[in-house]
């Protein structure tokens, strides 16, 4: 019983935060800069609100079959928009680095292919005899797709780290929030058969945390990055001296 109460309150908090995020995106005109992310946020807001009304106020007016169909269609649209968000982060991150475009595109495509194959392997193994799906095949598809998404974000962070690319605050916030949500959701999906009751709560907490991160990174102004750690001549001379001694040992 208390799980349901927590779940409902988390849902309400999520709708409130999504409304705030939508308003922020519109007021700051970030929807023009990040069309996929804006579409994803707006879609999640509408989906959550409609589902909340249907679950708590209009339960009798819709059959279970229609409910499930609607739910999974919404999940598929959300996943497609999620891929759009990752692509948007990738494009914005590499916009300024023309020398990396060709390499990044090639590696990103290959990563996508490999991760899609891994997704199919996850799906195949989980669906094979002896591993009967416990919460519907669609959860397995979702698990496979989330694996691909998490892998692509992993690749993006590793690639940016390897080349020392500078993340703009808003892009970093979007990638961080989305990465956190899909990583925790992937864990929850994988462990759903062990923790069936807390699955929805974990998912809601992860999503609400991501909403807070998105709001924070969009609202806090980007700090200036002009101050640099200038070397002191004496330190450099000491360093060179130590180096020369080491070489001539």
């Amino acid at each position, binding site marked *: 019983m208390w799980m349901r109460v927590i779940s409902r309150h988390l849902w309400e908090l999520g709708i409130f935060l999504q409304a705030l995020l939508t308003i922020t995106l519109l007021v700051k005109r970030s929807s023009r800069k990040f069309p996929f992310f804006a579409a994803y946020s707006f879609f999640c807001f509408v989906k959550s609100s409609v589902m909340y009304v249907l679950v708590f106020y209009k339960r009798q007016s819709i059959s279970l079959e229609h409910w499930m169909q609607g739910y999974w269609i919404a999940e598929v649209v959300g996943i497609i928009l999620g891929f759009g968000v990752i692509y948007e982060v990738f494009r914005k991150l590499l916009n300024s*680095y023309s020398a990396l475009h060709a390499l990044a595109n090639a590696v990103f495509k290959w990563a996508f292919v490999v991760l899609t194959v891994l997704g199919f392997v996850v799906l195949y193994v989980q669906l094979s005899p002896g591993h009967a799906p416990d919460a519907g095949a669609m959860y397995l598809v979702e698990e496979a797709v989330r694996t691909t998404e998490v892998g692509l974000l*992993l690749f993006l*962070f590793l690639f940016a780290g*390897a080349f020392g690319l*500078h993340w703009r605050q808003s892009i970093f916030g979007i990638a961080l929030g989305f990465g956190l949500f899909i990583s925790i959701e992937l*864990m929850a999906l994988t*462990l759903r058969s062990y923790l069936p009751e807390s699955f929805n709560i974990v998912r809601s907490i992860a999503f609400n945390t991501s909403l807070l991160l998105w709001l924070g990174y969009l609202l806090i102004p980007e700090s200036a990055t002009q101050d*640099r750690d200038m070397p002191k001549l004496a330190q450099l001379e000491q360093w060179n001296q130590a*180096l020369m001694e080491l070489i001539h040992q």
Partner: protein
Amino acid sequence: MMITMIVLAIALCAIALLYFAVRSRRIHAGGQPVRSLDLQAFRTLMDRDDETFLRNKVPRWDFWRLKRRRIAVTMKYVGRIASNAAAVLQMAEAARQNADAEVAEMAAQVVDMATQIRMQCMVAFAKLTAEFLFPSLQLTPAMLAPTYQALREKVLRLGSLEPQNAAPLATAI
């Protein structure tokens, strides 16, 4: 069960990486650290004639020990070059938005060169690691020193065009 463990490992790796990304962003909040580099010393370190001389003159075990030390120092230098290239990337990326077409064009060239250097640093790290593990190996050295020198010249040129932002960096690297 195996595939479940792999999927969980991917998710955990992603969370760990996000944590490190946030930490690294906080550490570098004031900009990438810039440290000066003695290119002459770096060239000396990369000189293969010295290595050949040592290989012929000292016993094998001593040579391996010396080579490993040398590689460890070279790696520090390559790390400095990579770090400076990242700082240059950050500065030049901002300069690309400059209203002056000449500054923007020069900044674009600097960005291209700095990204090439980052790539060369990765290759150099891989080669140096291989040589550290197997000191008898002698892999072709990366063309880091001349490319870095060219980057310095480009950043100096950018510094003369945009003295308030690029000049301090040009003198520091």
